[in-house]
Each structure stands twice: as C-alpha cells, then as structure tokens.
C-alpha cells in the first residue's frame, strides 16, 4: 500500500499530531528560514538586473535575467574556475584518502622504531594554522617549478589538511580486531593485499568521512589558491574567482550571485545524496 503524502503525514509520520512536535517543527522551520535567507537572496539576486537589485529588496525578480549566468560563466571565466576546482578537489581527495589511510593503518596497528616519534609529530602539528606555513609552502612550490600550475595547487591542498585524518585513521584501525589480519596472513596473503582487500573495506565509514571532509576542505580553501594563483589567474579556483569580482571598483552583484550559485550547486547535490553515509561514517569512526 502506498501511503499518501499529505502535509500532516510529512510532519508527523504515522503518529498522532502532538502539540510538542508541532511547536518544535514551527520553531525549526522559522530558524531554517533565517538560515537559508542568504541563499534565497543569492539566487534571487542572480536573476535580477543590477538596477532592480537596489530598487526591489523582495525575493521574487520582476523579469528573470538569465544573462547573469552567461556573464558569470563566460566573461568571468566561472566555467574554467569550476573545472579547476573540480580537478584540485578530485585530485586531492584521492591523494589524501589513500596516503592517510595507509599512514594511519601502519601507525595505528603496528609497533616499530620511530612510530611514537611520527605519532607525536603529527599530533603536535594539528593546531598549526595555515597562515603559519603558507610562506614556505609557496617557496617550496616555486623551487619545484609547481607554483603556477594545478598540480602544485592539488599537492599543497592535499598536504595541509591531512594531519587530522591520519590521527582519525590511526584511531579507527587500532580498534579493529587482530584476528582478521592473522587469518589472512596464515592464508599467505601479502601485507599490501591485506590492507587493500581486508582492512580498507572494513574502514569504509572512516574513508567516507575523510572523503567528505577533504571535499569540503578543497572546495572551501581560499588562502592557498589565492597565494598560488596570484601569478597565474588561469588556474584560479571558484573561491578566488568569486573574490576577484569584489576587487573591481563597483561590484557586479548580480554576476557575482550567479557565479556563487554555480559554485554551490554541485556540493549541495553531493551532500544531499551522501549525507546518510556521512553521519553513519562519523558515528562509526568514533565508535569503532
């Protein structure tokens, strides 16, 4: 039997309506309205003309100016910046997840000379803010000839956030039962294959968590791409590209809003699709 979706059903499910649930829902709905107002404003502004934007504070545009999107995509190079951001994000997610999982696995499960030193070194650097390391990172990339291309940006984006992930992976792997590996080793499975086929699949909640956190980090990162793209605007990411709108004498608010809308749509879709895994992953990661 397919249940009919009435508003009452959406709010209360199969339960009888209660005052407490109604009240909570209303308060939360108001809060959410305040919460998403900046987004409604952004989407609405992206469809207004520059004149209307100052004259009409309402959220419904008079006539829809789709041209703002064309301007953002073509003239402001948002299309290109979008592609750059995608490359940096996908590249750094791959690099970070694989390398921190391997590092965390070894640190979390094995005793060997130097282990404690590595561990303390990682934990000690957790609080170092990006501003502290940005100058040497920039110099290092220049020395290697990577300071004005996407590969260098991807590498540096990967390097910065990895410490927390190493600590998380080490904690997660250390809690898995020992018998798994021992059984595999008796079967003659090699060290790397045990990691890849036995341990990594078991750490899936943690992998999902790290992937999502790195996506958020790469998509949000600003200081590093700003510094690295100073010399080469062609490799700007979305954040830096949108910031560049502001640099002009009069801000092109409607074009900027269109650009901003473009920059958030993919991550919003990704989150809506993956949020169940994200929450379960985090819960599993800490619960072990």
């Amino acid at each position, binding site marked *: 039997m397919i249940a009919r979706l009435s508003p009452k059903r959406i709010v209360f499910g199969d339960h009888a309506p209660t005052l407490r*649930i109604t009240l909570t829902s209303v308060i939360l709905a108001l809060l959410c309205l305040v919460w998403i107002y*900046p987004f409604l404003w952004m989407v609405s502004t992206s469809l207004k003309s520059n004149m209307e934007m100052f004259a009409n504070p309402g959220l419904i545009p008079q006539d829809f100016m789709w041209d703002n999107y064309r301007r953002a995509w073509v003239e402001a190079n948002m299309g290109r910046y979008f592609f750059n951001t995608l490359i940096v994000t996908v590249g750094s997610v791959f690099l970070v997840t694989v390398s921190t999982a391997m590092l965390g696995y070894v640190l979390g499960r094995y005793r060997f000379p130097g282990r404690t030193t590595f561990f303390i070194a990682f934990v000690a650097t*957790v609080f170092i*803010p990006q501003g502290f390391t940005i*100058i*040497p990172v920039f110099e*290092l990339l220049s020395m290697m000839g990577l300071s004005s291309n996407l590969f260098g940006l991807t590498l540096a984006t990967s390097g910065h956030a990895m410490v927390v992930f190493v600590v998380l992976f080490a904690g997660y792997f250390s809690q898995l039962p020992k018998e798994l590996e021992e059984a595999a080793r008796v079967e003659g499975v090699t060290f790397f294959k045990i990691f890849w086929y036995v341990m990594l699949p078991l750490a899936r909640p943690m992998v999902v968590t790290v992937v999502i956190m790195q996506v958020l980090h790469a998509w949000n990162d600003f200081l590093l791409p700003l510094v690295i793209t100073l010399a080469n605007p062609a490799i700007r990411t979305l954040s830096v590209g949108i*910031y560049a709108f502001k640099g002009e004498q009069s801000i092109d608010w409607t074009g900027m809003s269109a650009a901003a809308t473009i920059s*958030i749509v993919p991550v919003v879709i990704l989150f809506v699709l993956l949020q169940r895994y994200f929450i379960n992953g*985090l819960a599993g990661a800490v619960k072990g």
Partner: protein
Amino acid sequence: MRVLGTLRVHRFHYLMMLPGLVLAGMFVFYPIFAAMFYAMHDWSGFTAQKIFVGFGNFLALFQDPIFWNAFGRSIVFLLGTVPLQMAISLILAMVLNMQLLKLSTFFRTMIFLPVVTPVAVIGIVWTFLLSPFNGPVNGLLLDLGLVSQPIDFLGSTQSVMPSVIGVYVWKWLGITLIYWLAALQTVPDEVYDAARLDNCKGHRLAFYVVLPIIKPFALAILLISSVAALNVFPLIMSMTNGGPFFGSEVMEIFIYRTAFAADDGSIPQLGYAAAAGVLFGAVLLGLTALQALATRRTRMATAGSKA
C-alpha cells in the same frame, strides 16, 4: 647493522607510510622548520638576499602593537566562536534527534547549506546583507523598529568582531551539528527506554544521561572546531580585509598582509611575517601541550577514583 635489520623487518611498514610521509614532509613538517629559518632573517621575498638577524624579528614583534592586537583578536575569535558553535549545535542536534520529528533530515540539510558553500562566497554575500546602505538585515531591523538608523556592522571597530563571529558560527554550525548527531547515534535505545521508565526527560535526560555518554566525542569535536576556527582567514578576508582600522585583523590576516600584500605600498617582509607565525604557533603548541596534560591528569584522577 642493527639499523639495516630493523629496516628489513619493518620494510613494508615504512614503505606503506612513504606517500603520506612525503606529503606531510613537504607541506606540514618542512614548512614549520623553514618558517623558523625565515623568521631569523630580514627578507623581502623580491630578491634572494636574506640577511641573518637572529631574534631581531621577534624583538621587533614584541614591541609591535599591531601584532599583539592581531594575536589577541585571534584568541577572542577562537573563544567567541567555538563555545557558541558547540553549544547551539548540541541543543539543535538533541532536538533533531527526536524520532518523532519527521522533518529532521530536511532541517539538517538546510542548516548544512552554509558549510558546503565556499567561504569566500559566504563572506561576500554577508557583506551585502549586513551593509548599512540597502542591506536586508538593516532593512529588517528598521522595519521592526529595533533600530532608528542603520548599523554599520562591518564598518565600525566595535561591531566588526561580533559580526564576523556571528557569520562564522552561522557558516559552520551545520558541520558541528553533524558531529553531534553522529555522537548521539552511539547512544543505545535502551538508555532512552530506561530513562523513560524512571520518568527522566527534558534537560535532566540531556544533562545526566545523554551528555556523559557522548562526552568522549565532545573532546574530538572541540579539537576539530578549534583547528577550523584558527583558519578563519578566508571569511575575514572576503568580508572586511581585516579592517576597519585593523578592527578585524586576526593573526592570519596580519601574516598575509605583511608577507604578500601591503596595501600601503611598503615592501613585503617575509621574514617578519614568518616570525609572527612562529610566535603564534609556539603559543598554540604550548596551549595544546597544557591541554593534553590537563586531560591526562583528569583521566588519571577519574581512573583513580574508580579503582
């Protein structure tokens, strides 16, 4: 020989750590030592010429009021955002965790929206929303009769830090909320059932039953939130550039401005900026160590009382 033997026995361990160590070495460990090296030099970055000045930069920093103001502002920002963010999101998480609340996924998604939006976008959008000229927030306050004239949220030195803190909490509340929700999922249903039998509900259920269970998570959430709050550069940069009159210049803005983009046309001072970073990093490291010691002592005390 012993070294070679160790290397052979653990060769797979070291090999597997290699990619991660190379990455961390390049972008985490090397920069820390390099920053210390630069900090001891007078260096503009334009030329290769670095003049060794020893602790000269540090001595100059000690007498630089702009540095100390930025330093203090970073701490104010940390203390202003993290507790607020953690408390509000915990209350919200407990409400959204109610099983009878069918719309909780929807509400959660709405509150998560700012998290997935690039910080630079958030900063620029809020600059307009908070503007004293035609800004919707001032429009609303005027319409409601709460203020008689528009507030220049980002343009006055008194209101700029609270405004930036408010926007930061709005931006990152969703992620802390998800952490808390994850923590709440680890509370077994039986605990709630037992509490119901004892007629324990509302704030008593929250304080005496649920909170103690999810306490281990609180520490991890505190850590992640604090790390994030120290990297506030993009938000402030895109909202105020550190202004007005340095009113929102936190440590990272100070470093960036000194190292890369002096607005007044003066020469970049990479050595001086690096020294500022080292000094700030040293204080944070000290605080981390203190906190770790305190945690260990509490844990030992708890263990002792249980024994």
